[in-house]
């Protein structure tokens, strides 16, 4: 077990301290509250706990047994064995934040690799060492833009096709910072071209935020919108799916100032929603306004190349209330997973997996729209996710699909009342042609039932 002391050792230690019992160590605690009787069960052994937890796990439908066509911000991708072999190494898993560089070079150089890979992928100049997830990375982008304009520009334009959770998170973070969010009102035209967001730009606009591919899977060239944002003096941010960047132009080519993203698709298990990985990259001129940890290359006193946390004066442990953010613990191990994933699949593998997602999703969309009663919502280009009008209410459809061993698509009505009856399917390299054909035949069967 986890507690080492024998009775004899405990006695020796109490003597050294100069008390007779362990209870005496707690005299400072008000007596009436001391040692409460907790209404909790007694301890289980590892064997027993393992059985209880495994039982709970076994009641879930998991994606090793089910066929998954659900995405909406979290995607079922293959995780090469190498990723877990590295991240479960105790030297990485049980290390602390690398504040002491001399005994943390492994973590530090891995973060440096992560920063290098993220800037290569997004085309931006600097990356931090991670945020919590795609949602909080967007919230921190707003904080950064607000700091950049010293609070003088208080409008932020949100694309209605930015993930609903991200839009909710951004509003929670900025409930008291005087920022006005526009663009994603329930009345927003979801089929309008992204350039229509430019109509909301004014001299008070700090930031415009779009998603790429957007929440509905569509891909747009945002060059015009970015240019208009810049003309109005605002910054332009893009939230990305990193797998898509294996195939698609990086947002740096649109003129993005900030590129954030959800890194889960890069070798991180779905794990019922977390832990995932927030990606945050930007241009060099904003590096001092950026939140989060940053690793820089330097030398040690023996003349060797070495790595160290740098520009720490931005951070809470140094700057306290003047810090760029309160973030401390980040997603270190998840950043390592993404680093190992990208190092392994590399230039060729990332392109290959992105193309597999793209082609399979297009095949699925073509097949589904041919089913009687189904049609595609949009004819814009898309990556690996698409919206379908279903003749059967999506919730009912998904219940039926479950019986056939299929995790169906995302019911869009829960976030967009105007999309009642629309469902969004995601397709990845994990879906074989047989699985797609099975989805199509099942949809045809259950939607008429």
């Amino acid at each position, binding site marked *: 077990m986890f507690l080492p002391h024998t009775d004899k050792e405990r006695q*020796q230690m109490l003597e050294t301290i100069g008390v007779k019992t362990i209870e005496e*160590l*707690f005299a400072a605690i008000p007596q009436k509250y*001391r040692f409460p009787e907790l209404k909790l069960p007694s*301890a289980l052994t590892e064997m027993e706990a393992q059985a209880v937890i495994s039982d709970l*796990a076994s*009641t*879930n439908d*998991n994606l*090793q047994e089910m066929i998954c066509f*659900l995405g909406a911000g*979290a995607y079922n991708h293959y995780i090469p064995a190498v990723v*877990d072999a*590295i*991240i479960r*190494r*105790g*030297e*990485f898993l049980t290390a602390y*934040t690398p504040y002491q*560089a001399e*005994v*943390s*070079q492994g*973590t530090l*150089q891995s973060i*440096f*690799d992560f920063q290098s*890979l993220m*800037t*290569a992928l997004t085309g931006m100049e600097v990356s931090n060492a*991670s945020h*919590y997830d795609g949602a909080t990375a967007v919230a921190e982008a707003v904080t950064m833009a607000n700091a950049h304009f010293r609070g003088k520009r208080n409008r932020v334009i949100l694309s209605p096709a930015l993930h609903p959770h991200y839009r909710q*998170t951004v509003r929670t973070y900025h409930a008291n*910072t005087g920022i006005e969010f526009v663009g994603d009102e329930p009345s927003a035209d979801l089929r309008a071209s992204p350039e229509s967001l430019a109509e909301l730009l004014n001299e008070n606009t700090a930031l415009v935020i779009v998603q790429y591919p957007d929440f509905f899977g569509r*891909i747009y060239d945002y060059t015009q919108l970015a240019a208009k944002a810049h003309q109005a003096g605002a910054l332009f941010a893009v939230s990305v799916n990193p797998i898509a*960047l294996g*195939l698609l*132009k990086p947002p740096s080519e649109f003129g993005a100032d900030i590129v954030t993203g*959800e890194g889960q698709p890069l070798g991180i298990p*779905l794990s*019922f929603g*977390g832990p995932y990985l927030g990606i945050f990259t930007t241009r060099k001129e904003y590096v001092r306004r950026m939140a989060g940890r940053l690793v820089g*290359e*330097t030398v040690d*006193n023996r003349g060797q190349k*070495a790595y160290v946390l740098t520009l720490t004066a931005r951070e*809470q*442990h140094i700057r306290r*209330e003047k810090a760029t953010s309160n973030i401390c*613990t*980040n*997603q270190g*191990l998840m950043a390592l997973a993404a680093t190992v994933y990208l*190092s392994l699949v*590399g*230039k060729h593998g990332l392109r290959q997996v992105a193309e597999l997602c793209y*082609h399979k999703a297009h*095949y699925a969309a073509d097949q589904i729209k041919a089913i009687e009663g189904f049609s595609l919502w949009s004819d814009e280009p898309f990556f690996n996710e698409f919206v379908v009008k279903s003749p059967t209410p999506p919730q009912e459809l998904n219940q039926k699909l*479950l019986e056939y061993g299929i995790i169906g698509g995302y019911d869009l009505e829960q976030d967009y009342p105007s999309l009642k009856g629309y469902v969004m399917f995601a397709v990845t390299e994990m879906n074989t042609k047989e699985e797609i054909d099975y989805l199509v035949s099942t949809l045809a069967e259950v939607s008429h039932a």
Partner: protein
Amino acid sequence: MPEPDLCELSVPNRIGFRFPEVDVPCAELPKGLVREHLPLPELYELDVIRRYTRLSQLNHAIDTGYYPLGSCTMKYNPKINEEMARLAGFAAVHPLQPVQSVQGCLALMYELQEWLKEIGGFAGVTLQPAAGAQGELTGILIIRAYHKDRGELQRTKILIPDSAHGTNPATSAMSGMTVVEIKSDERGNTDLDSLRKQCDETLAGIMITNPNTLGLFDENIEEVIRLVHEAGGLVYGDGANMNALLGIVRPGDLGIDVLHFNLHKTFSTPHGGGGPGSGPVGVCDKLVDYLPSPIVTITQEGDEETPPVYGFYTPPKSIGRVKSFHGHFGMMVRAYTYMLMHGKEGLRKVSEHAVLNANYLRARLRNVYHIPYDRICMHEFVAEGRWEDAPEVRALDISKRLMDFGFHPPTNYFPLIVHEALMIEPTETESKQTLDAFADALIRIAEEARTNPDLLKSAPHHTPVGRVDEVKAARDLILACGVSVEEDT
């Protein structure tokens, strides 16, 4: 020898991983949107395994050595936790699956909420926050929402003791609050006179860490809470130091209104080289309606034959979401496994032994290192890393020299109210032999400080790298492989 840059390892056209060939007709690629240049490395599998295995070996970690890092609770992270989090029934579950297909996940989350409520003495718990700092943000936003709801918009002042973690003031500022610092008194408690002066109609609340960062249980805690409540404020508890309190005292019983737990400290989930953490937040009865959505609840009671049905619930006055999906579920599995293996008696033993170990180390060191607030401590204590007869030596030098003995240094230069602070948190999972070896090393270093200070000033000598040039790192700003960021100033 340092490992080469990632880009230096890359060889054009080397393949690291093959996905299956495309088995559907190819669609036309989107015009004008296809990427031409993807500057990722080209390695093969053994390159990757060796690189990251070798890099891992440059780290100090709990699995390789002792980590007496104050306020970080670097306890052993049980291996069974890792196995449980990797069960396909948890790891291969999509967060947006229909609720009836994820009842096991929801049951685990519900149980974890219940355990944390009982341990903390709270009426409600959200598991959503990703880390301690996000738990703080959640808590302060809840406090703000509570006052706003009562029409008390002027309550924007948050009091923070001078011994607090940096995240406390940063969180308050980020939440649109004003921060006022409160002094500590000569016994390391919150100074009641400073506190009274700030108790007015603009008071939103106080953020208090108890035991505080000196490792001391605040002897004024009941009076602090009474004064703040009387002035209409709420009390936020920073649960970073909960490892001292399991089964010892429940923060909710003391009158703390809202508190974050750190599953990655108190409940043994691994730190992962900086994360992920998990920062659930517990609240008292009057704040449950403000918790972030979603919360796991029982939607249909069970009976002897059928288990209850679980679902999500959004509290009526919820501050909203603080992140996507439902929080760091993988960390919840680990923490819940740990809790089951301790039970009520085991949790109390954890805190008792954490406190025993801290006091033992304090007793062994107090005649060699000055301990500015030298009384029975909780799970950690703060020593000064300086001596009058060794004027050149600083806490930093002691820390670096400890590395030569195979120990990670204590937290240094924190809390800010102690000069040359060495903040030592032994944790309960360390044996007497390890504690003795650590104390012996510190005692020997104290001698070296007098006899051979250069040995300390030039330390560490036996680590993969020596002291690093932080100024150069900040000046050159080489933040990615082969790229130097030249700032426009």
